[in-house]
């Protein structure tokens, strides 16, 4: 088994790089779109508010695999042909934007109303108040659920192998077909995914501890 692992390790590493690239690109898209959604959702324009709520409800209810297929096959049929990598990024980004915007919203809501009033009393403009008072505190509250979501995002990137992206899962699939040793290969892939999970959840735990210490 170890010999087989050694033989396929370079392929797996290449797969890990692709998985991380998908994760990174999807994360950027999700955060940007999520910020837009939360701005629309908490804003004054009623139509935008309903649109944001609708988007969040709909995307949270559709399974990620369906979104991946829609981004790759369905968009392709209507003339938007994305390569597998970008179809995966769009699907994951669109889904996680809905989740992130909810985390951002509860982050914003966690900031005490008094903070806003204090900033206004000091004569700050709306922009200065957001930048210097509200957002720094909201970010602190957003980070734990945001990190948790990131660990789910990495796991969900494993779905892009279904549209031919050569990620970690894809390499494990190839290797298990070539060697007829599926258990060995999927366990090896599992070790990689588990390492990322442990890494992120430990960072998360340490972060929470730090924040609590600073606050008390």
């Amino acid at each position, binding site marked *: 088994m170890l010999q087989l692992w050694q033989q396929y390790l370079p392929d797996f590493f290449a797969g890990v790089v692709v998985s991380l690239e998908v994760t990174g690109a999807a994360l950027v898209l999700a955060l940007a779109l999520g910020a837009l959604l939360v701005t629309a959702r908490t804003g004054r324009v009623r139509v935008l508010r309903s649109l944001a709520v609708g988007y969040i409800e709909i995307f949270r*209810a559709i399974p990620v695999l369906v979104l991946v297929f*829609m981004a790759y096959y369905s968009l392709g049929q209507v003339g938007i042909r994305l390569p597998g990598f970008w179809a995966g990024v769009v699907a994951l980004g669109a889904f996680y934007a809905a989740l992130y915007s909810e985390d951002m919203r509860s982050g914003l809501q966690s900031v005490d109303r008094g903070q806003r009033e204090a900033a206004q009393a000091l004569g700050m403009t709306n922009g200065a108040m957001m930048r210097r008072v509200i957002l720094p505190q909201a970010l602190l509250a957003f980070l734990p659920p945001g990190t948790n979501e990131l660990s789910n995002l990495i796991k*969900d990137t494993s779905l892009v192998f279904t549209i031919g992206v050569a990620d970690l899962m894809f390499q494990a699939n190839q290797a298990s077909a070539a060697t007829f040793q599926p*258990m060995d290969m*999927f366990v090896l892939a599992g070790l990689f*995914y588990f390492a990322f*999970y442990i890494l992120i959840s430990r960072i998360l735990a340490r972060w929470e501890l730090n924040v609590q210490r600073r606050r008390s």
Partner: protein
Amino acid sequence: MHYVALYWAVMARGGALDLEMTAIAVAISVVVGVLAAIGKLYGGKLLAAIITGYVEVIRGLPPILQLFIIYFGLSQFQINLSPFAAGLLWLILYGIGYAVEIFRAGIAAVAEGQGEAADALGMTRAQGLRRVILPQAWVIMLPSLMTFLVLQVKNTTLLYLVGVADIMYQARLGTSATEQPAIMYGMAAVAYLVINLTLSRLGGVLERRVEASR
């Protein structure tokens, strides 16, 4: 549009299979989950460590990888499960991993204080759990349980990858027959949307009922 009419019935059959598997898996994982949560809270250090390790593995590995380990991985040891059996087994094992944590949190939240009151009344631990803690814990856990149900419905989409004839499988077949992926995956999306939004609405109604009756 005639594609929709043509494939509606097949998709519905796929949806029925999805719901059936979800229902069986959730029922079993809730029962095992309650027992495992009680084991983790009161069963000593070793049992708690084993259960924690299990939950970490279920949470740490991608769902699709877990399913492939059960379906393809076990075949390496001549354990050949049917797609349905492998899919159901995975849904149950995955569900237990989530249910344990939901119940542990729910029971722990009530047991603080209420557990001591039950002790003070001379109840045994089993009596305290059954008569005092669990009835209250259910109410607290209702929202997480509904989220869990929706999560499991979404997880059934992965089962088509090992050959279970669910909604995704039908959408896939429909796509190769008609070359209309926009319509076929659109129908699949609408099907899941209807199921999941209905479940979350039902959950909301249930929660309000329970809240009102207290």
